[in-house]
């Protein structure tokens, strides 16, 4: 084979290329995460990692599983569509361990004002008051029951005192 007579150096060079390619494949196998490219140009396992974060807001369905009395009371009033944790804050820890983790009862003076302080910027139909004029600094739950705030709400559920309200 006279064609390949002086081609030895080319074969050695080609061998080097093949070797480099194999090294590339081996390195690539170890550095590219296994799930990379499963759904697209990203690591599919990241989806599962993000989904496995712990939840902090339990969700109103969880609350209502135990506190059905409050859910009943709330369903008749203007706050029917306000979820529990909108006012009570994130309660997943309490839901996981109700006996040891007790929620802190919100201070109605601060809590109610967040939504109901009068401002020209708020939608006109939304109930709003100037707290200083309206209640003279008294906590809102002196007169209103937060779960059913209308003044015509049944008197049987007197405004909650912090001790019993922490149920």
């Amino acid at each position, binding site marked *: 084979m006279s064609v390949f007579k002086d081609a030895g150096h080319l074969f050695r060079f080609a061998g080097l290329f093949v070797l480099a390619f194999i090294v590339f494949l081996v390195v690539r196998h170890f550095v590219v995460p296994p799930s990379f490219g499963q759904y697209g140009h990203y690591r599919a396992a990241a*989806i599962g990692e993000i989904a496995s974060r712990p939840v902090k807001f339990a969700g109103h369905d969880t609350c209502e599983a135990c506190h059905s009395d409050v859910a009943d009371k709330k369903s008749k009033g203007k706050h029917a569509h306000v979820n529990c*944790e909108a006012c009570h804050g994130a309660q997943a820890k309490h839901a996981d361990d109700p006996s040891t983790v007790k929620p802190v009862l919100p201070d109605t003076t601060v809590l109610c004002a967040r939504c109901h302080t009068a401002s020209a910027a708020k*939608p006109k139909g939304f109930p709003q008051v100037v707290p200083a004029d309206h209640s003279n600094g008294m906590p809102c739950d002196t007169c209103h029951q937060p779960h059913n705030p209308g003044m015509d709400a049944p008197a049987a559920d007197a405004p909650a005192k912090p001790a019993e309200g922490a149920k």
Partner: protein
Amino acid sequence: MNINRRQMLILLPAAAIAWKSVLAGTPEDSPNYKMSDHWWGMLIDIPKCIGCGNCVRACQTENDVPDGYFRTWVERYHVSDWEMKNPQDIMTNPMTDPQVISPDGGKEGFPVATDESGKYFFVPKMCNHCADSPCTQVCPVGATFVAPDGVVLVDQKYCLGCAYCVQACPYGCRYIHPEKRVADKCTLCYHRITKGLTTACCEACPTGARQLVDLKNPKDPIHEFLKTHSVQVLKPQMATGAKAFYNGLDGSVR
């Protein structure tokens, strides 16, 4: 065990495929969740928003968002009345109108507005979970992506923190986490929606101004809502395929 070269060459790819399926990423805690059954978005009903900041606080609690950074925030717009004598004046200085404020992202609400003139409204902002996201397209390492269920996520183990995506997002919804030094953004509470819960911001919204929507669910009320309301997305001219739908959005919102 004797394996010759031929057997080895057959076994290696087979083992690689088996290993791949072992490590395949499926949401672990949610065995009933199928990504292909969902296409998530958010409906934001501007006339219902009262600017209480509950969503911003809830998001920070749920997702450990550092102070001064926001995955969602609320802006208050004040659009002045037209000057009756010289209506053209509003055009001469468009930078002063509308006036937009967002003190600490609206986390603690807004100062009381006393000026009764003009109109006010609140605009909650968040990641629009675009179907054609500019942010995912610029990532040099494939660390951010649109998941098969339409949620734009960041793989924080893979992110280099180059911040190219932060610049690319036309809505300003991304930031570099000050401690992790990687891109961070709204995940649409992916750890919640895959478990059948709604997002923290929707859970905490007292007026229902925010609603998580699943565009692949035929029973989702969003379909009826989109038929009967004038719903817009932000910056439609950018063709991002945004899935944060705004009802009653004013033309002055940019």
